């Protein structure tokens, strides 16, 4: 195609600007040009303006085509005033459209990348929902509404308007969606979003004023959530739909992650609560004084492995107690801890001797592990360590303890004179070995004497001046020796306090303490 050329200039020196020449290509691009007539008569304002003001070029749109023109002055004789100007015209419609779409594509990619980053850092369902609405408001559409169903009966929503104010949020129940069956269907995540859902949306109590502008709804897909992204604006073009869909995918992923995180944290809390040591019985008649302390490891999803309990006095006049620790952490440890305690509750119905109980528990746990992994040649070992026993009042006011242990640190006895003695009892861990050795012994506590059971989280707590030293048996013994005359709860509180000082704020494993004390005689 030959280049379009128009030559303009004064009709005579100082005269009106007229078209001196125009080739056929120019005539096609700028219809109405007539050689010898004034430029202004052709009716192309951009050309007229450029000629009159002697601009170096101009761009204009004629009949849907974008034209670019550059001027070349034919002033080689230096007579600037009377010079002719040659305008070279080019159709740049495709170029302009291409670069505009490139700019749009870059802006979209940037928006989606930034949105992805902003959404994924949140991990909180309601905050993610609010962020999803406010990020898109003003970019995708003036008003953005996000509706979210998380499998419960509640549908949450967040709406953001361009003004940048904090998004509005609210909740509806599924029953509230009876009048909006298409939305209800879309929020199950099983059906595509019906294009007519926009009409229903106007009825929902989620607007400041029901929208009169165009409403576009796209699905928010998610693994554990389903939602709908609603864009509202007066001049939404069809281009917004693909971008809205891509944005909705990112929103869905972020909401799913937040929902899963919430579920996991909730599960952890429920399990932790179920594992919280039961309240200790009040002073059992004529019997034992008890105190305890428990400090689970800090991480919220790290469900503790330590457990202890003191049961009400049996018909035989004995008060059963135990303190133990299951291997591992998290959900698996919680399940094992539950199994240990429930097995013991059942076994106690037929057996009271601590050593026999522990041997039976060992067999029960091994059998259960085999049942859990019938295909595996060697099931992954799961075990617990514990001290288990019972206490019986003696005629002199003291207490006789029967103790059995499997793989657990031996208890201490704090004598009335401040001596601290380790109980000489040892055994192998429970639930891992068919030939487990269960150690057992009997000790008598004189009135006022205390027996302390503890988990290895105490002696293996790392701290001190260097931050890496174990608290260790010696410091525990010294701490206990300083508790002569204290009631059992004070003993536990004091030891835990000294341990906290040692830790100096550092993280630690589960810590459990159980103190058993023979009551002081009335005349002592």
């Amino acid at each position, binding site marked *: 195609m030959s280049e379009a050329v128009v030559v303009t200039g004064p009709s005579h020196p100082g005269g009106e600007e007229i078209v001196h020449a125009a080739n056929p290509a120019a005539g096609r691009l700028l219809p109405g040009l007539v050689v010898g007539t004034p430029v202004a008569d052709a009716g192309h304002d951009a050309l007229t303006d450029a000629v009159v003001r002697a601009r170096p070029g101009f761009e204009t749109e004629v009949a849907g085509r974008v034209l670019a023109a550059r001027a070349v002055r034919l002033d080689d004789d230096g007579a600037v005033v009377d010079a002719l100007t040659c305008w070279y015209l080019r159709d740049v419609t495709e170029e302009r459209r291409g670069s505009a779409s490139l700019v749009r594509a870059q802006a979209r990619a940037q928006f989606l990348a930034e949105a992805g980053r902003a959404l994924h850092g949140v991990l909180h369902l309601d905050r993610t929902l609010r962020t999803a609405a406010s990020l898109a408001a003003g970019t995708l559409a003036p008003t953005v509404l996000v509706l979210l169903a998380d499998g419960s009966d509640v549908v949450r929503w967040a709406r953001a308007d361009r003004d940048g104010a904090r998004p509005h949020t609210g909740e509806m129940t599924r029953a509230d969606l009876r009048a909006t069956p298409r939305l209800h269907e879309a929020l199950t995540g099983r059906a595509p979003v019906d294009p007519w859902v926009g009409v229903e949306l106007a009825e929902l109590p989620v607007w400041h004023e029901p929208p009169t502008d165009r409403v576009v709804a796209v699905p928010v897909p998610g693994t554990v959530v389903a939602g709908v992204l609603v864009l509202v604006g007066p001049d939404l073009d069809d281009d917004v739909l693909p971008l809205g869909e891509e944005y909705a995918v990112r929103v869905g992923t972020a909401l799913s992650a937040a929902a899963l995180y919430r579920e996991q944290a909730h599960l952890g809390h429920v399990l932790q609560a179920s594992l919280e040591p039961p309240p200790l019985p009040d002073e059992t008649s004529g019997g034992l004084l008890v105190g305890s302390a428990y400090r689970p490891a800090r991480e919220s999803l*790290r469900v503790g*492995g330590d457990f202890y309990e003191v049961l009400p006095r049996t018909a035989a006049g004995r008060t059963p107690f135990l303190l133990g*620790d*299951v*291997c*591992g*952490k998290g959900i698996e440890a919680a399940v094992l801890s539950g199994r240990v305690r429930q097995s013991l509750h059942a076994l106690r119905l037929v057996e009271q001797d601590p050593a026999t109980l522990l041997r039976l528990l060992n067999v029960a746990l091994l059998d259960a592990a085999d049942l859990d992994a019938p295909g595996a*040649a*060697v099931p*992954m*070992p*799961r*075990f617990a*360590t514990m001290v288990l026993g019972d206490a019986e009042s003696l005629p002199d006011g003291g207490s006789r303890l029967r103790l059995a242990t499997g*793989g*657990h*640190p031996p208890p201490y006895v704090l004598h009335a004179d401040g001596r601290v003695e380790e109980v000489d009892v*040892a*055994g*192998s*861990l429970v639930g*891992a*070995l068919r030939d*487990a*050795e269960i150690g057992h012994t009997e000790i008598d506590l004189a009135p006022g004497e205390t027996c302390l059971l503890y988990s*290895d989280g105490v002696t*293996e707590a*790392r701290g*001190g*001046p*260097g*931050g*890496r030293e*174990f608290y260790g048996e010696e410091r525990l013994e010294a701490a206990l020796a300083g508790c002569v005359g204290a009631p059992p709860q004070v003993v536990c509180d004091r030891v835990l306090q000294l341990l906290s*000082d040692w830790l*100096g704020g550092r993280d630690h*494993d589960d810590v459990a303490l159980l103190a058993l004390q023979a009551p002081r005689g009335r005349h002592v």
Partner: protein
Amino acid sequence: MFPGGSGVIAPEPDFAVRIEKEQVPDVGPRVLVVVTGDVDYTHFGELETALEHEIGRSTGPLDLVVDLTAVPYCDSCGMRVLLGASQQVAAGGGVFGLRGVHGQVARALKLTGLDRVLGA
């Protein structure tokens, strides 16, 4: 908080598992798993993966020794991994052993009765 203390917190040693092969005279090849650092809740998985890998790829009875010389601390998660590995090696007709056990690790293994099982 600790009068007289230096206040300097010693850096936690990094955790590492290194696999070495030894030729034991008159016995045969031995896989030596050298561990450095605490075998605790945060790190036991790395040791478990390494041991499972070595056990899984052995075609015959395995002579496996875990060197704990550079391990200051082993919690119940770590003991579980060691016990599981020893049971798997034994099930395959092999021999499992520990080397360099000391300090807290030695106390914990003795306390739990695992010292006699794991050949510490």
